[in-house]
């Protein structure tokens, strides 16, 4: 690796600068503005809803409610190495260390206003959708008791195979209920045109985001999935707004430009690897360094693509929106997940897969052993499973994990795998 620990030469500096992703700055500005606006709304008559990452946010945007995402905040606390102390607050109240560290950290932050931005603004109501896990509704029940505010649960039964009609019907009834609730809370009437408009923006942003991710099919990859983890914050938190559409337009242009100029994110890209599960937020920097040293690019992942939507039908906006939210990646059976992994592996031409077995997140992690085997069976490529937690660093064994990753990458080339 060039310039490791030493002064960089002018040329190396210029090269590093050239490889840097410029949109990261725009993203920081966007997110800062968003958090400042949200925090500034506390105590005013603007409504603030805390919402889970997989929940339909478009209705909130259409009713001018500010959505706040504890999971995004959790990732931020994790990356700032502040989540453990927040978890400890919740543990002190009796929450087990085995519960999701997003939930623990969030409960701790609600209690103390702790974290890098002094906690999230107080919600006027809560929206939890269990399409990502069943942890969220237990966590939000606790928040509802803590803040003494209403909780709306948008219930998305697990889908095995094709989406059955009775799930679609149940989802639609809840979409209607959701609108009625918003009418009641905000005192406004549901404006279908406005909703279609928001849904369309959400869709366009989702589409742009999927094009951004697709740029990594190119060799060398213009970014790693660690960059995608950072760049996805707006699609998670602000989809449905024009700003987000503009932002991803910019990102897409930058990526295309990089492809044109053949600028890869790594100085050299020898191996291409698929990542599974939520990032290890507090370890991104170290892992990033390690992969760079190993000339290995994490070109795709199963996480960021969860926010690429398609198919909102303007004739039936609520129903089609409802269907999209019913079938997200974590709410489908293992076989469908395996199909998705296989298709990513093929599209991005990966040499192997690294799975983060995440103690916090059972829906994402249970089944990985079977998925790893299935991946190898279908693609002939090896898979490595590392055990960690996305924001509780007390479970992380750096030396052991880095050694395992090194061994894995060293064996990537020329490996023929038998199952």
């Amino acid at each position, binding site marked *: 690796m060039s310039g490791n620990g030493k002064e960089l030469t002018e040329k190396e500096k210029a090269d590093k600068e050239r490889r840097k992703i410029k949109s990261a700055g725009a993203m920081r500005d966007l997110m800062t503005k968003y958090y400042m606006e949200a925090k500034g709304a506390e105590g005013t008559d603007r409504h603030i809803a805390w919402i889970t990452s997989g929940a339909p946010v478009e209705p909130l945007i259409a009713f001018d409610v500010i959505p706040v995402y504890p999971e995004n905040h959790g990732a931020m606390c994790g990356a700032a190495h502040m989540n453990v102390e927040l978890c400890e607050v919740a543990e002190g*109240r*009796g*929450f*087990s260390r*085995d*519960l*999701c560290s997003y*939930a623990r950290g969030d409960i701790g932050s609600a209690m103390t206003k702790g974290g890098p931005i002094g906690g999230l603004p107080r919600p006027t109501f809560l929206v939890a959708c*269990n399409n990502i*896990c*069943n*942890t969220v*509704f*237990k*966590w939000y*029940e*606790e928040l*509802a*008791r803590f803040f003494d505010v209403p*909780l709306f*649960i948008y*219930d998305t*039964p*697990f889908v*095995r195979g094709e989406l*059955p009609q*009775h*799930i679609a*019907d*149940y989802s639609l*009834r*809840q979409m209607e*209920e959701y609108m009625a609730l918003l009418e009641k809370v905000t005192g406004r009437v549901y404006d279908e045109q406005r909703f279609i408009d928001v849904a369309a923006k959400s869709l366009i942003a989702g589409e742009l985001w999927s094009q951004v991710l697709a740029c990594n099919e190119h060799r060398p990859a213009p970014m790693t999935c660690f960059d995608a983890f950072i760049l996805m914050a707006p699609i998670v938190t602000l989809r449905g707004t024009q700003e987000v559409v503009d932002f991803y337009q910019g990102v897409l242009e930058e990526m295309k430009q990089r492809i044109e100029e053949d600028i890869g994110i790594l100085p050299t890209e020898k191996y291409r690897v698929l990542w599974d599960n939520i990032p290890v937020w507090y370890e991104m920097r170290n892992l990033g360094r390690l992969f760079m040293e190993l000339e290995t690019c994490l070109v795709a992942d199963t996480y960021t693509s969860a926010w690429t939507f398609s198919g909102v039908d303007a004739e039936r906006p609520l129903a089609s929106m409802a269907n999209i939210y019913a079938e997200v990646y974590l709410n489908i*059976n*293992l*076989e469908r997940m395996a199909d998705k992994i296989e298709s990513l592996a093929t599209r991005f031409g990966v040499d192997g897969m690294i799975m983060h*077995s995440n*103690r916090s997140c*059972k*829906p994402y*992690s*249970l*089944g*990985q*052993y*079977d998925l790893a085997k299935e991946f190898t069976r279908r693609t002939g490529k090896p898979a490595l499973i590392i*055990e960690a937690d996305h924001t509780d660093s007390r479970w992380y064994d750096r030396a052991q994990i880095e050694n395992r990753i090194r061994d894995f990458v060293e064996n990537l080339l020329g490996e023929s795998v038998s199952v």
Partner: protein
Amino acid sequence: MDVQTIVDECLELWRDPYPHLARLREEGEKPLAVFCSYTPEEIIHAAGFTPVRLMGAVRTITYADAHLQTYCCSLARTDLDMALAGELDFLEGAVFVQTCDTMMRLSDIWRRNTDFPFHGDLVLPIRMGEDVSLPFLVEEVHRFRRSVEDYVGEAIWDDALEESIHVYNRNRRLADRLYKLRTTSPGVLDGLSATACLAAGFWMRREKHNEMLHELLEGLDTGGQPGRERTPLLVSGSVCTTPDLVELLQELGADVVDDDLCSGHRYFDNYVDEADTPEEALARRMWGRVNCPAKHQSIEDRVEHLVRQVQDSGAAGVIFYLQSFCEPHLFDVPYLRERLQKELDVPSLVLESELQSFSRGQLRTRLQAFLETISGV
């Protein structure tokens, strides 16, 4: 059979039901596994199977670790381990009900790695007791019935299903009498016996269990003397895989006067309306019964229910008995404990169970310490 013999047999069954289940198969019954108290067992029963409950086992894990992480509850791990070891070959199959994330994934893992003839899935809403979810639930019950019918290759007639519903309702009435005895006629039947006699029903045809409960209740001498003073306790949580907890409490001078367990009181709560059409009625029962923490009715329903139970039973303390890594229960523990303390001044203890490293000695020490704090008040 006299009362003591019945109780002893039930205890033995509870201690290790598996050899008995294998025998059922030899005798021509077709045991079909259920894990969850939300399973509409009546449908399985009406199709000619014997629904039997899998509640894990105290054992070391040999095979399941290749499929499930160690940060997963020991019910899932030991049940899967037994299946992979071939120790459950007497089963016709299993029914998975969507409650927690672990069960949701376990269903797929089980299906992919075992080859029992039948695999059933029932996807429940988490929102119970609200109009919005009822049609979905009714349809899901209907689809489950279809999947059983497809498997047996013939229809389950409504009258057969009604008959099974009747049998299960009778079972619930008997179980309710059994449980109430402890408060209406204290000293007649201790907590260990009552819990064991309820649990035994998980591993036999319900008709047989009904006869047994009937015989037991008839044979009890309700006019007898109240036994010696014991510390009344309530146990709340998921399941008691073995009798150890209740047994130890008894040994230590306490008595379990009621429970909020899905292998106990939650199992038989609420009746199926026999005047309604069977599918609708089955759905309505689950929808209206006392909530399990993996379901939602309101943010207060569990504490309200628990407070009422503690008051009605006169429990002086509550033991939360949970599986390690079980989110639904672990999330509820802090507020339930706070509220019990605040509203009733009732202390509680949290015990986490991991069946692969079960230690009766440790359990005893913790219980003893807790009981000392209660009797010290």
